[in-house]
Structures are given as C-alpha cells and as structure tokens.
C-alpha cells in the first residue's frame, strides 16, 4: 500500500474547517425549516417554505441585496477607475501612498458610524451646508441615510471599497505593464481615451474579475452597514435573517432558516459558478 494514497490529513482538516460548518449548517437549517428538528418540530412540513416563497418580501429582499451589492461595487469601481486614470503614478507618491491604506484599517461598523456623522441630516455635510447658507435646518438637507433607495449603504460601501480597488487596480496595472501597452497603442495612433478604453480597461477588468466577483458576493451579504444606515424596509438579506432570528417570538425562526438557506444556496451557487468559469477560462488559455 503506497503512503501517497492515504488522504492528506491537512486537506481533510481544510475541508472539515471550511465546507464542514457551511454544509452542516445548511443541513440543519433544512431539517429545522421542514419541521423535522427543533422546538417547533411536529413532523415533516413544507409550510414554512411555502410561506416564505409566497412572501413578496423574500424576493424583494434578495433582489435588493443583489442590487445593493452590484451598485456598491459598480460605483466604487467607476470611481476607482476614474481616480486611477486621473492620478496615475501619483498614487504611489507622497502622503497619498500611505493614506490609501487607511480605509483598509476601518471595519464596516466604524464606517457606518462615520456615515451617520458625516452624511446624516445633522452631520458634518449638513453643518457645512448651513455655514455656507444653503440650508436653514437639518430637515432641509437631503436625506441620504435610512432610505429605501439604499443610497447610504452604497455611499458607505464606496468609502470602504474604492481605496481597496484603487490599490488593486494600481497593482494589476503594474503586473500587466499597462503603461507600456498604452504607450504602444499611443505610438500606433490611438488617442489617450482610445488607449485607455480599448487597452487599459479590458486588461484590468480581465485580471481583476476573480477578485471583483468574490467582493460582489461578500457585499451582497453585508450586515453591519445596512444594519446601521439602511432602511427598515426593504432590508438586505443578512439584516432580515438576523431580525427574524432574534425576535422574541420563536415561531419566526423556521422562516429565518428558510431565508438563510435560500441565500446560502444562491451565494454558494454564484461562487461555484465563478470558480467553474475561471477553471474553463484557464483551460482554454492553456490550450490556445
């Protein structure tokens, strides 16, 4: 018997520590939400699943989370691309070089607190507007937080994500020698805009897509920011699950588990599709 045929204990640990809790949790939620285990277990039932799937709020919440994740990432990406195009090598010089790392040291909870203090109706921006004579009282300042449009969530996420993306794009650009490629394009007669749009952008997007996709899934499941600056309704999926789960009335728990199971399947499906797509792309690249 060859030793190499024995399963590697570290790989077993890896699978147990990562997929183990996720799959065990999913199985538990499925059993609980079908009435097979738990305090409300009275035999197999699909009642909770019917209730949740028939509830418009479920689909609104999932669509809202998807939209907030996508809007936060898209807005941050556009801003990061614009800043990178505008600042270029200056991003790596002077005080800015170090300061761009500061938002990486800020947890979402603190970012949300700062949003309230800056973007709120009595926040720093409102006070500045009052000083400039644009508004008379806090109510005159446009409401940016706790609104169903989710603008507060997107703006707060932008403050967290944009510096990260800016640093990421800068590094990707250097790895792929984008400056040299653009120079070649310019020499061949492309305008600055054409070189950026047709050379720089596709190279950066292709290289950054794996990280951006994982980031999108993480933003979709964001909790602290929508909890502190989001509206009561609609709410993002993590917030709704936590609210339903933590209610005094435990009869809402099976519904929380149904929603959590739905979301877990959606997020895992997206993640596995992403890795499968990347695997196929790499095989294609090697073949060509």
């Amino acid at each position, binding site marked *: 018997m060859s030793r190499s045929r024995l399963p590697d204990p570290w790989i077993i640990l890896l699978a147990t520590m*990562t997929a183990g809790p996720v799959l065990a949790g999913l199985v538990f939620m499925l059993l609980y939400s079908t009435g097979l285990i738990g305090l409300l277990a009275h035999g197999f039932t699909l009642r909770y699943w019917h209730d949740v799937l028939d509830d418009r709020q479920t689909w609104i919440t999932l669509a809202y989370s998807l939209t907030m994740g996508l809007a936060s990432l898209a807005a941050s990406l556009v801003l990061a691309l614009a800043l990178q195009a505008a600042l270029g090598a200056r991003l790596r010089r002077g005080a800015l070089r170090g300061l761009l790392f500061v938002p990486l040291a800020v947890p979402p909870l603190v970012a949300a607190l700062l949003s309230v203090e800056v973007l709120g109706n009595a926040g720093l921006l409102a006070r500045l507007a009052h000083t400039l004579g644009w508004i008379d009282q806090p109510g005159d300042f446009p409401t940016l937080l706790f609104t169903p449009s989710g603008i507060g969530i997107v703006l707060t996420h932008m403050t967290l994500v944009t510096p990260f993306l800016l640093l990421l794009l800068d590094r990707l650009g250097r790895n792929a020698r984008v400056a040299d490629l653009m120079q070649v394009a310019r020499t061949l007669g492309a305008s600055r805009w054409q070189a950026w749009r047709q050379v720089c952008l596709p190279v950066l997007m292709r290289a950054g897509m794996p990280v951006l996709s994982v980031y999108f899934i993480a933003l979709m499941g964001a909790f602290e920011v929508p909890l502190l600056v989001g509206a009561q309704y609609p709410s993002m999926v993590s917030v709704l*699950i936590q609210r339903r789960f933590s209610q005094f009335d435990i009869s809402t728990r099976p519904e929380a588990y149904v929603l*959590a199971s739905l979301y877990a399947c959606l997020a895992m499906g997206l993640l596995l599709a992403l890795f499968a797509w990347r695997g196929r792309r790499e095989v294609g690249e090697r073949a060509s």
Partner: protein
Amino acid sequence: MRRVLAWMLSGMLVLPLVLLVLLSLARHWTWPALLPAELQVRQWRDLFADANGLGTVVLRSLGMGVGVAVVATTLGFASSRSLARHARKGRLLALLHLPFAVSPVVLGVSLLYAFLRLHLAGHMLGVMLAQLVFAYAYAVILLSGFWNQRARSLEELASSLGAGRRQVWLHVLMPLARPLLGVCLFQTFLISWFDYALVLLIGSGQVSTLTMTLYQYFSSGDIRLAATCALLLLTPPLLALGLNHQLLSATIVTRLEAYDDE
C-alpha cells in the same frame, strides 16, 4: 490639477480619523456648529480608569483576537502547504471561499443550535471557534502564496543534505516564512477584532467585545463613547500601518497571488 486632486483625496482619507478624535473629545457639539464648542478628556480618563468596564472589554477582545490568530496561522500554514501541492487546488480554493460567500450572519444562525447543544453559545470559546472558520480559511489562502518554487527547492535541498522533517520546518521553512506569518497573524487577528455578527449571534449577548460595546453605545445615542470605541478599534491596524504597509496591503497582494498561482 493632479496635485490638487491628490491633496483633496488625501484630505478625504484623513477627515474620518479627525472626526472620530473630535467626537471622542467633544463635550458640547450641537447643531449647527462645525466644531465642538468645548472639549474634554473624560471619555479617555474613564477608559483608562476602567470606569465603565471598557478596559476589560478591550483586553477580552485582544485575547480573543490573539487566540484566533495563533491557531488560524498555525493550522493554516501546514494546510496551505498541502493546498499548494494538491492537484485540485482550484476546487479547494472554492471550498475556502465558502464561509465568506454565505456570510457570517448565515453561518452564525445555522451553527447556533449546535453551539447551544455543545454549551459553546454565549461563551468566548464558542465565538472564537466560529471566528476561526473565517480566520483559518483566510490564513490558508494567504499562506498558499508562500509555497512557490523557491520554498520547494530549499526544502528539497535541506532534506537532501540530511535534515529531518522537523529540522526542515524549524530551521528552513519557518525562518523563510516569518514575514508572511507575521502578516497572517495580524490579518487573522483583525478578522476576530473587527467581528460583530458572530459575537452577536454565537455570543448571544453574553460575550462583550469592543464591536458589541461600540454598537450598544451607538444605538443608545452615546456617540462620544461610540467614537472612543471606534478609535480603539482602529488603533491596532493604524499602528500596523505606521510600522509596515505590508501588514495591511497583504489583503490585496495575497488575493491576486492566490488566483494567479492556481
């Protein structure tokens, strides 16, 4: 023009920190004043005197963070070696991302029942175990970048010169990986230090950490103490930033390396 934009961006990056300091020192800061009318150091004095138990909370959060970081980095280092040499590295990388995809809230609610049965819910150890799922996965992804051709060649060279397995780990691999292990310890510490969702759910209100205290002060309207907690939360990463950019930039570099080497 570029210079002006760079200065504006720098200002916007510093402003939140200045605002937090002002909030934590403000005594009266009523609408529509742009700056506080009066400053005081009471919040900080109370903190150092442990008048509202904040000192204990900070020590607990630090202890949890250090514990999670040490275990995650130790296990992650050994696992990352197996991952880097595995034929199905891509699939295993997907597994490592699963906890992050389902989000801490979903993982927290799904594991709470099991933790209750094991008498781990409402305990520091239970919260640390739940945080370890994320910290370990992160450590493996981060450290898998270490096992490149150079590390493999040195490992083989030491073995061929007669070094035992233990000696190779202690005298070749560990010294070589020391900078990255430092980064990993710090990043996994931050996973626990910044965590709110798992403390809320698995801790079930019994485990008081700095993030929990911040939220409690914030929701009760005591913005000054919330800002003080926020500054305390930012202290370790900002100190690290002052010492070495790499401790924070690892987030970006590692993600790229993990995807590139696949």
